[in-house]
């Protein structure tokens, strides 16, 4: 028998007990051939192409999942940013296009389709503006469409006008979905340095440099890393911690790449569409389930709670070790690849917020060394637009200066204040409303573009 007894049990334990799974197999579809000056033509082409291309996506992923005994939690779709294929569209045209996306996603059986997006790090076209203006109405009218807007980049700087529009879109989306805890904002994310091969919603989109149809895979295994860190005990030094996490990341990345490649092959055979395997996204992604938490890993590393002195350093060890182990395991690593620290989706993060151990400001510091940014954070419903814009600018400045992806997914929960909680259910979890500084920030409304940063003298 070429398989080692211990290895088999180790694998089964990871899958059965420690929640290791493939978090998402995301089918990226280019919609560049769907462009037209006529709104109804764009809608029809987009709807048909998604239905045709993704018809077998869920079935194939389920079959591969059964064959390998690895749970694939989500089967999703990312598409070319729709502002690129419908630049002449009005606000109502974009809403109608978004509704067609929602219908296509429902038809092929996916819960989210992402790429209702615009890339405006340097400037906005009329179509980009219309798309951003249409977001609140679309988030209220649909359940499966996810929107994202790239407002800045290291190369171009930060588009302050786009940030202001996005802050307004977030506030308005919260108001329009007030009856459901402002859940529309959970499907809406603003970026700096967004990437085109991110398989995770809400920020996924099919980048303009991508092939026609691509499978990208997001793996997840906070529970597995937690066990290995706990097994190490309190006497292991930083180097041993990093080494152990690296070894674990290697294993889960290899499983992710295998499943992604097999999904691409099987879909290619089933449809005759030239589906390519793209990347494995290494991001450790928590879920609201107990034992599937990034925060618990940090606590197991030796913190009384998240927010204790040393939190940022612990997260740095974790994120870096995951990347090193993953890069050893696969030559095709991409997407966001780090550690997600969404508040509402991580039980340890929720507890830390409820105990007052962590603030938005500390979370902001943590995002400078992990992937993504201020994610799934509930804030008071009466938070002014200029404060939301200011938080976005702060977060994007971290991304711009450090040449990394950062994002903001805030939920100003309509009618709720600090001390209250909003419960979204499912993978989105629940979020205690966190306080936001009451200090005013007319600075954020100045508009224009923050210049691109210098790339030398980097201290």
């Amino acid at each position: 028998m070429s398989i080692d007894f211990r290895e088999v049990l180790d694998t089964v334990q990871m899958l059965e007990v420690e929640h290791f799974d493939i978090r998402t197999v995301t089918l990226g579809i280019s919609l560049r051939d769907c462009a037209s000056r006529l709104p109804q033509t764009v809608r029809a082409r987009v709807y048909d192409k998604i239905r045709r291309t993704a018809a077998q996506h869920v079935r194939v992923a389920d079959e591969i999942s059964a064959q390998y005994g690895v749970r694939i939690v989500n089967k999703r779709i990312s598409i070319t940013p729709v502002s690129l294929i419908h630049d002449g569209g009005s606000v109502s045209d974009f809403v109608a296009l978004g509704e067609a996306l929602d219908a296509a996603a429902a038809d092929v059986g996916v819960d989210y389709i992402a790429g209702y997006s615009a890339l405006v790090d340097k400037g906005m076209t009329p179509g980009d503006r219309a798309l951003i203006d249409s977001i609140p109405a679309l988030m209220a009218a649909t359940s499966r469409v996810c929107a994202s807007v790239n407002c800045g980049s290291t190369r171009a700087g930060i588009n302050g006008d786009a940030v202001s529009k996005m802050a307004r879109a977030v506030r308005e989306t919260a108001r329009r979905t007030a009856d459901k805890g402002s859940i529309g904002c959970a499907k809406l994310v603003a970026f700096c340095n967004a990437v085109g091969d991110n398989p995770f919603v809400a920020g996924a989109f099919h980048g303009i440099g991508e092939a026609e149809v691509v499978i990208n895979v997001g793996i997840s295994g906070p529970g597995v890393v937690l066990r290995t860190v706990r097994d190490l005990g309190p006497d292991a030094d930083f180097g041993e911690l990093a080494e152990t996490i690296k070894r674990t990341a290697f294993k889960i990345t290899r499983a992710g790449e295998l499943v992604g490649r097999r999904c691409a092959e099987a879909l290619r055979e089933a449809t005759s569409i030239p589906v390519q395997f793209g990347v494995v996204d290494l991001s450790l992604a928590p879920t609201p389930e107990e034992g599937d938490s990034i925060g618990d890993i940090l606590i197991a590393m030796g913190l009384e709670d998240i927010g204790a002195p040393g939190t940022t350093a612990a997260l740095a060890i974790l994120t870096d070790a995951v990347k090193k182990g993953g890069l050893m395991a696969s030559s095709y690593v991409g997407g966001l690849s780090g550690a997600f620290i969404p508040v509402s989706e991580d039980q340890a993060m929720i507890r830390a917020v409820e105990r007052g151990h962590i603030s938005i400001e500390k979370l902001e510091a943590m995002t400078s060394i992990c992937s993504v940014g201020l994610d799934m954070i509930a804030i008071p419903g009466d938070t002014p637009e200029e404060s939301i814009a200011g938080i976005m600018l702060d977060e994007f400045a971290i991304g711009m200066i450090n040449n990394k992806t950062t994002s903001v997914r805030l939920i100003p929960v309509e009618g709720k204040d600090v001390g209250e909680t909003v419960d979204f259910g499912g993978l989105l979890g629940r979020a205690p409303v966190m306080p936001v500084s009451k200090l005013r920030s007319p600075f954020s409304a100045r508009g224009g573009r923050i210049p691109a940063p210098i790339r030398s003298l980097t201290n």
Partner: protein
Amino acid sequence: MDIRGVVDILAKNFPDASADQVEQTVAELAGIIGETATGEDRAIVTVYGRDRPGILASVTAVVSNAGHNILDVSQKILQGYFALIMLIEVGEHGVGAVQDELARLAESESVRAVVQHEQLFNAMHRL
């Protein structure tokens, strides 16, 4: 190609070799092929839970009846709990049927049963 075909080719190309030499060569080749197999058609069955007499026989019956060839079996028992690992050659109907049957057995016996393609283990634990 079956093993008889390999023997015939070796006997034809090496007419001076003795029957023992041909047999020895075939055995060595089979060993190499077995070691380097990609695991295209092999799966690992893992069953674990509270030990009871006859559980190995029950699992073996389910796997065999589903048309799979059992290549190797390993079992460990510790403090009343058992872990059983079985390497199988997947039959023409794939692993779907045996997964369903094992799920039923697992439910009636209050144990856990998992069937996974061998490639998964090779990917996770081999460079």
